[in-house]
Each structure stands twice: as structure tokens, then as C-alpha cells.
């Protein structure tokens, strides 16, 4: 699957926020393909409001508060000819749907020996840093990394949000997308092409550099870019990599970068134990140990729940200053 951006003329671009790009991607896919339906809670009012006005009730299913089962309805519909987008809203609610996502969606193609196909997209948004406490503030993607048969995406730019969501809808396998509320307001150029796709499984080098490699995941990208800018002013060249697809992970791009820099800082807002940084660090220790000139640094949320009070929550997630300090320790 290749981006269909014309090679010889500049693509037409529009400025969109991350959230607008998410809506546009779904709208375009629903217009392109009648089999694409949307399911989720309060879709008549929130998020997809624009979509609700455009399509009839057969395309947008405003569900009861039954995440554990409407997710399964989407899977049954996917197996019998539709391509549902299941909107689970806040990422903490994905736990309610996890049985159907893991035990049915991820396994059925394999367990039936390829007899059934499950072309479905699960969407959710990671809310945190908003004083809504632990039951609304999860970043649960690491738990799904341990599930075979799922593709996991987390775009960090409006263009990638559009291109990856569209690629997910066109994929014949179950794909789970963790969007990040911290990025919703970010505005940037997005290709207007209704067939603009970002390939699943390909990382993006957001900032090229030579001294230290920084891999930042989801909302942690904001702090990483801020840190890269500050360090650049001090004459340090940081390469910032955005995996975009968390699984299957483009480890090649990360290893190629570390082969040049010899130094690696991993930044993410998930909890520290067995997260994506753990997996990247372990893989590099196994396969690229010789490239490393310094120990790998992981900057993550600690192993404690997200507290309500803003003064307590603020200290949980890595900020630019910590990334700057980590990079300086390595050079």
C-alpha cells in the first residue's frame, strides 16, 4: 500500500487539526465504500457529529453503553461483509471491549484456518493530563502489544491521522488505533487527496539528526519535538523518530538511526513496566548491542495510577526538560 501522492506536482494541502483529520478520514472512507459503518456511543452528538448528519441510520449505529458487546457486534458484522469502525471513545473503556478484541477479533482468522476475515477498526482516544482521574486516563496500548493478530497504530500528526485511519479501514485485518487527546488541537497541512494513505508498519523520521536518537510515542511527541528544538539551539543534533505503527513495529528505522548515533532515548506516556520502550530496548540489546555507545534511557510514566489533583498528575508524564537532560547525559 503506497501513498498515492503525485510525484511530480505538489499535492494539494489543507490545514486541519488532528481531530478534523480523524473525522475527514472516516467521512471519506464511508463515502468511498458502502460497507464502512460506524458504531459507538453518543455519535449523534460528539466527535463524529458531522458524519451523523451525512449518512443514514444504517451507516451510523448509536449504541447503548455496552462496550463489551457492541464491539462484538462490529466483529460479527465484519465477518459477514461489512468494514466497521468501532469507536470506543475513551481509551480506558477499551478494557471493557478487550475480551471481544482479543478472544474474537484477533484470533478468529487464525483459529478458523483462514476461513473468516475480520476487517475491522477499533478507535479510542487516550485522555490524560486533564484531571479526570485513573478510570478515564489510561494509555493501554502496551497491553495489546502482547496480542498476536492485531495491528496497533498511534498517529501523532493530522496527516498521519488521516492516512493511517484510511489505511486501517482498507486493511483486511483487525486494527486498533490509539489516538491522543494531547494532539487534538494540533493544526498542520494534510493532503486533500481522498486516497491519501500512510502505510501501516512504517516509522517516520520527524527530525533528522546525528548525535542522539529519540523515539517518541503518541502524545510524547510534543515534548520530544520541543526538546529537539531546544537542543538544536545549543548545537546538539537530535534525530526524532515517530513509530506511528506500534505493531508491527518498524524496528529497522530505529536500528539504522542508532547505528549512526549510538545513543537512544525512548519517551512515552504509558506506564514503565513492559511498555513499547521495553520492547524496543530489549530488541536493540539483542540485535544492535554493538551500536550502543551509552546505555539506553527510558522516560515514561511511573508505575502508579493517574491521580486526579493537577499538581499530582503533572509530575507523571515526561516533559521536554527531562528529555533535554537525558540527551545531555548521553553526549
Amino acid at each position, binding site marked *: 500500500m503506497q501513498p498515492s501522492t503525485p510525484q511530480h506536482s505538489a499535492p494539494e494541502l489543507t490545514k486541519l487539526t488532528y481531530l478534523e483529520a480523524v473525522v475527514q478520514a472516516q467521512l471519506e472512507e464511508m463515502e468511498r465504500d458502502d460497507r464502512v*459503518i460506524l458504531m459507538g456511543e453518543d455519535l449523534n452528538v460528539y466527535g463524529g457529529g458531522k458524519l451523523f448528519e451525512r449518512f443514514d441510520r*444504517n*451507516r451510523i*449505529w448509536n*449504541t*447503548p453503553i*455496552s462496550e*463489551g*458487546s*457492541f*464491539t*462484538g*457486534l*462490529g*466483529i*460479527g*458484522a*465484519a*465477518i*459477514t*461483509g*461489512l468494514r466497521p469502525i468501532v469507536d470506543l471513545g475513551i481509551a480506558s473503556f477499551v478494557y471493557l471491549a478487550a*475480551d*471481544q478484541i482479543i*478472544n*474474537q477479533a484477533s484470533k*478468529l*482468522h*487464525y*483459529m*478458523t*484456518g*483462514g*476461513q*473468516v*476475515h475480520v*476487517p475491522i477498526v477499533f478507535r479510542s482516544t487516550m485522555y490524560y493530563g486533564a484531571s479526570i482521574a485513573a478510570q478515564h486516563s489510561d494509555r493501554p496500548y502496551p497491553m495489546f502489544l502482547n496480542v*498476536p*493478530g492485531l495491528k496497533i497504530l498511534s498517529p501523532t500528526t493530522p496527516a498521519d491521522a488521516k492516512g493511517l485511519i484510511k489505511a486501517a479501514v482498507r*486493511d*483486511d*485485518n483487525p486494527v486498533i488505533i490509539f489516538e491522543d487527546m494531547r494532539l487534538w488541537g494540533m493544526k498542520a497541512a494534510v493532503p486533500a487527496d481522498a486516497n491519501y494513505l500512510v502505510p501501516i508498519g512504517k516509522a517516520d523520521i520527524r527530525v533528522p539528526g546525528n548525535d542522539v536518537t529519540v523515539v517518541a510515542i503518541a502524545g510524547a511527541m510534543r515534548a520530544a519535538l520541543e526538546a529537539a528544538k531546544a537542543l538544536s539551539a545549543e548545537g546538539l543534533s537530535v534525530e526524532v523518530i515517530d513509530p506511528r505503527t506500534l505493531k508491527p513495529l518498524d524496528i529497522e528505522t530505529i536500528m539504522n538511526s542508532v547505528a549512526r548515533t549510538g545513543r537512544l532515548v525512548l519517551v512515552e506516556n504509558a506506564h514503565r513496566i513492559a511498555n513499547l520502550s521495553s520492547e524496543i530496548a530489549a530488541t536493540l540489546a539483542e540485535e544492535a548491542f554493538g551500536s550502543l555507545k551509552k546505555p539506553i534511557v527510558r522516560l515514561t510514566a511511573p508505575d502508579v495510577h493517574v491521580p486526579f489533583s493537577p499538581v499530582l498528575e503533572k509530575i507523571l508524564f515526561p516533559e521536554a526538560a527531562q528529555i533535554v537532560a537525558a540527551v545531555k547525559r548521553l553526549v
Partner: protein
Amino acid sequence: MTLTMQLRLEAYRRMLRIRRFEEEGTRLFREGTIPGAYHSSIGQEATIVGACLTLRDDDFMTGTHRSHGHPIGKGAELDGLMAELMGRQTGICKGRGGSMHLADNRVGIIGESAIVGGGIPLATGVGLSIRVRRTDQVCLCFFGDGAVNQGTFHESLNMASLWKLPVIYLCENNGYAVVTPLEGSHGQPSIAKRADAYGMPGVALDGQDVGAVFEATSEAVIRARSGEGPTLIEAKTYRFDEHNVGLLIPGAPYRAPEEIDEYRTRRDPVMLLRKALFDDGVRASELESIEAEVDAAVRGAVRFAEGSPLPDPAGVYEDLFTRS
């Protein structure tokens, strides 16, 4: 709609196919040819076949961990099913599913879920898909009495009723969730009564009577096809063997030997149907010819499975993802 004589003979053929398949399977499991755990449908044949006979070839179905009877009831070939139980490459699921997952998509089965209650949302989603695609198909959803206590049952039946989806919820109530009797786990022991709470019809019937199952399911199918929505059917049935064959139950027996004996000798659905057919004038030679045909098919399936290759370990990653 009542069973015609032609359909009663077909019911006998399919019920016997399940019975003989399970008898051979049990033997092969006990001798070690079939690995894992064996979940026999013996005793529940009338419920399965009575419901399946109401469906068209293009209708859908979901089932449970007790999965061998469902595809046979819907008309599947036996070879791939037996090969699957033996973990062969020619198995219906290429040796990736086994006893709890004999799903044959060629007869419309989209999955046999060994997560109790896990198939109920899938079947409901099939109903939603039928609605979106504007066909007059239906989905028959099998589950057991244990599954009724899962949240998926409540959530799914609510949505099916809300949106009038073409789904038939068929509870194979065999009285026991593994070893826990129904009265030990259901605050409301009438499963059919629960339908009231969701605004759909609920029917309780004798699941050992293939005609009764056929009639009630036919009505539910007509209702579903005409856009009037789902029905809950509680078929009271019985499994003759343990939850899985050879399961060791410590302590006192959870079922009275008299109860098992009563079902085996007086409420055996295959025996009941054979006797009724004979009493209604079907010649013994006609029944014997069905029996010979079924025996040959089951023997053929065992030969096919035993002669099939085991999967190549190099292929273990195949079908993890669809190649699109």
C-alpha cells in the same frame, strides 16, 4: 410449521451423523488419537438438528465450545471435521481450532466460541450486517445455560431487540454449566422468561423432541426474516457424557445416576425419533439404509483424517493475518 415426513427422515439422518461421529470421536479420544479435550454433543442432537433444519443454506450460525454437532447439523461434510479433531492439515481449521472450534464457514458458521457467551455478540453483529446489507438472511445463535449469565447475553439481546435484528437466540439448556446445576447459578431459573426483560418473545420447549424444536425455531425464523426481530428459545436438553469426555470430578457425583439413566434409556433423542418414525410406518429397511449410509460416512471421515498429513511446523504463522 411442522416437520414433513421427508424432513423427519433428514432429521434422523443428521442426528445420527452427530451421534455416530461423536461415538467414533470419543473412542479415538480415549485411545489417544485425538489430543486435547473432547466435548461431545451426544444427547443434544434433537435441539441442534431441529433448529438447523429451519435454516437456508445462506443463513448464518454461531456456536459454542460443544462445537461438533453444530456444523453437522447445518449440513457440513464430516471429513474436515474429523481431521480437525486429530489436528491434521486437512482439518476444517487446518489444525488451529480443534474440539472447541469446529467452525465450517462453507455452511455459514462464522465461529464456535469457547469463551462462554463470546459468540452471542458476534451473532448479533451478523444480524446487524444483514440489516445493513438489506438481505432476508437470519443468524441462529447457539449458546448454553451457563452463557445466559454472561454480560454479553444481556447487552446483545438488548441491542437485538432495540434494532429488531434477525437473530434467533437458541439456548441449549443441558442443565449444567460444567458441574454447576442451573438452580445453583440462576436467580431466575426460567431462561425463556428472561426474554420479557428485553421485549422479545421467549419460548421454553422439550429439546429432546426434534419436532418441537423445529416448530418453535421456524416461527422465530419467519419473525426474523419479516423484520419483526429476535426470539429467545430455551430448549431443555441433556448431555450424556461429562462436560468433556473423561473429566475427573472429585468428591460426590454432581448428577444422580438415576437422572443420567433416565435420559439414556427413555429420553434419548435419536432413539425417540427412530421409534416415532417406525410407529408412523417408516419401514425398518429404510431406517437401516440411513444408518448404513451414516456409518459409512463416519468411517470414511476417520479414514480420511488418519490418512491426512500433520501440519508443517514451518507454517505456524500462516493465517495470523490475511494477505490483502
